[in-house]
């Protein structure tokens, strides 16, 4: 698969801090990409460079095989920033039309697409309402529609689910999957790890302006696994001592085990089978992204940048 976006040694320094310090990664077309990091890690600066709002001090951005040209390529990008909003006094239909036209759509084209999306997300009756009359969730939905309306090749969503109830969050999630299937690439920036695990194919974790992790969700989990297993047994168990594993925790009707070096999961099963107990369940415990995240960020002795002294 070809790459939609490649970042090569990107740097952006502010007077007092290195917001983005030598970050490189690439994103494949049609994938859902997660950009993670604690507050102040440099995510927003990175996204602003990708959307052409900021220019990098050094490094290069390659968009769809060519050097990124902010003036023209932003038409191909839909960006929903974390700090988002709409004109409060403007009618919803007009607002969507205006934002679509700013993205280079003709009026007729924009109208047709707005109608399509409004129908899809059951927003048709909103046309003449004003944004100030909408609830937070509703305006979030509208914001999402205006971001994806022009069918951009690259959609950047910064915390898209904040303020949405589970029902609407699922609705938006389905749309995100649908867009990815139709060939759009989605960059998804958040610090809600359970959503990332659910949605993303590929993640990058940044901290203190540097990339600390890059890979697929399952690959990362594999590389951070601690060889822990949980086993559920039926009946009394007698001898649970075997050189193949160490017992970490004894639970009602089971154990949490860690395989010792040089052994395999089958060795555990063999041990319990020999004992003649019925095994009800046996599975590997993989670390959650949340745990990995906390381990990496805490390990780096991160201090949130927003609290750093700025003169």
């Amino acid at each position, binding site marked *: 698969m070809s790459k939609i976006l490649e970042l090569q040694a990107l740097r952006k320094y502010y007077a007092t801090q290195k917001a983005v310090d030598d970050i490189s990664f690439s994103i494949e077309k049609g994938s859902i990409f997660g950009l993670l990091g604690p507050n102040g890690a440099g995510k927003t600066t990175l996204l602003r460079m990708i959307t052409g*709002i900021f220019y990098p001090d050094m490094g290069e951005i390659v968009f769809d095989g060519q050097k990124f040209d902010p003036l023209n390529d*932003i038409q191909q990008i839909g*960006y929903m*920033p974390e700090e988002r*909003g*709409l004109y409060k006094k403007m009618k919803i239909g007009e607002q969507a039309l205006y*934002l679509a036209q*700013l993205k280079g759509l003709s009026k007729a084209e924009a109208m047709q697409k707005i109608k399509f999306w409004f129908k899809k997300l059951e927003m048709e009756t909103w046309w003449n309402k004003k944004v100030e009359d909408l609830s937070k969730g509703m305006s979030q939905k509208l914001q999402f529609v205006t971001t994806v309306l022009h069918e951009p090749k690259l959609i950047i969503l910064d915390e898209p689910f904040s303020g949405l109830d589970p029902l609407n969050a699922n609705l938006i999630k389905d749309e995100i999957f649908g867009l990815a299937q139709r060939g759009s690439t989605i960059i998804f920036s958040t610090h809600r790890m359970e959503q990332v695990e659910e949605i993303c194919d590929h993640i990058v974790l940044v901290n203190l302006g540097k990339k600390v992790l890059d890979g697929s969700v399952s690959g990362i989990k594999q590389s951070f696994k601690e060889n822990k297993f949980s086993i559920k047994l039926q009946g009394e168990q007698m001898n649970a001592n075997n050189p193949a594993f160490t017992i970490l925790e004894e639970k009602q009707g089971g154990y949490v085990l860690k395989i010792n070096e040089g052994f395999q999961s089958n060795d555990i099963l063999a041990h319990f089978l020999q004992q003649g107990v019925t095994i009800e369940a046996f599975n590997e415990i993989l670390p959650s992204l949340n745990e990995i995240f906390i381990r990496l960020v805490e390990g780096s002795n991160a201090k949130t940048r927003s609290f750093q002294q700025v003169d």
Partner: protein
Amino acid sequence: MNKISLVAKREFLTRVQKKTFLLTTIGVPLLIFAFYALIIFFSVKSTDNFTIAVLDKANIFNGSIDSKKGSDVIFKFVKDDTSVLKNKLEQKEYDAYLYVPENYSITGKSTDSLLFRSAKTVGIMTREKIENRISKTLEEKRLMSMNISKSQLDSIQNQKESITFSSSSGKTENQTKVGLSYGVGFVSGFMIYIILFIYGTMVMRGVVEEKVSRIAEVIISSVKPFQLMMGKIVGIGAVGLLQFIIWGILIFAIQLLVPVLFPQLFEQMQSQPVQPGMMAAAETAKQSGALSGIMNGLSEINFTLIIGCFIFYFLGGYFMYASLFAAVGSAANEDMQDAQSLLLPIMMPIIFGIVIMMQAVNNPNGSLAVFGSLFPLTSPIVMMARVAHGIPDGVTVFQLVLSMVFLILGFFGTTWLAAKIYRTGILMYGKKVTWKELWKWAVKKN
């Protein structure tokens, strides 16, 4: 370019479609007009045929008081006694009576004075009319008693002292014209001053609104910050222009309407400036004492030049200052108070402009006026005062062109500077910004 026009269109339409726009653009002038109309209406109409009985014991009026045709004050000479007159006053046969005591003398040596008694309090307009007519008649009688005939008097009155003022360019200056130039210069300079404030703060408020409602970043991911800023400035400038055109048409229409609605008005025209636009003219009318003088003076003022310059300096000044106002707006946070303190350095040159302008209308070629009309931050206000005096009396062609070039350069300068502040400020939240910081944003690269 297309995006600037899209942004401008939105800014223009959202403002023009608001009810407050209609209210301020059409409502306010109409309200002022209605207010004036009411005042005029009551002052003119309050005196439907005021009949005054004159009991002329000394026979000084000789049976007639200078009577104007169509006037609503009527003098009626009677021979009744004062007590009878009092009665008739109560029966409303007369509105008032004038009693001239027997030993009253027009040479003014008598101790008795004229006695005027009315049934009700007399309105100020009517009182003025009565006073005017009585004293005019008395004046004539006094002169006649000194053997000066009416025709002699008329010829004296028509012989005015006339001094010819002329400038070194050899052109004769008409006093009315100088007065009118003063008025036109002052009014147009002042109007530009008001425009800079009203529309400048409108731009600033628009920027703050965009920032506070957090839509700035959404928009900036589709258009360049510069395009957003320019679009806003152009859109609001168009609103201002439209508003001025409507006001112009309304004032023109009202000026046509006033004489039709209130024909009696011209009787009082000389002492009562009514139409707002004619204020300055009426001022000078007092000095010269003739309406025809105004017309003469008006025809000598080069209105094409003034209107042309007004539009140029209106747009130039607005565009130059609007970007500065936008920059201040971009640095503000939720609290408008922050913006107020940042605003001061922008308002200073505007205020200096109006101060220099007041000097320049009197002395269009003083060194301060010349400096003020060339310096781009004050020239939109000051130059109007000089242009009103015409070319080359007020300003030379060279200076005018130089000033225009400076203004255009100033516009590029402030816009370039403001755009840099704007692009940083519009995305900066939760920080109180000082001018020192704004300067840093302006000079840093990118």
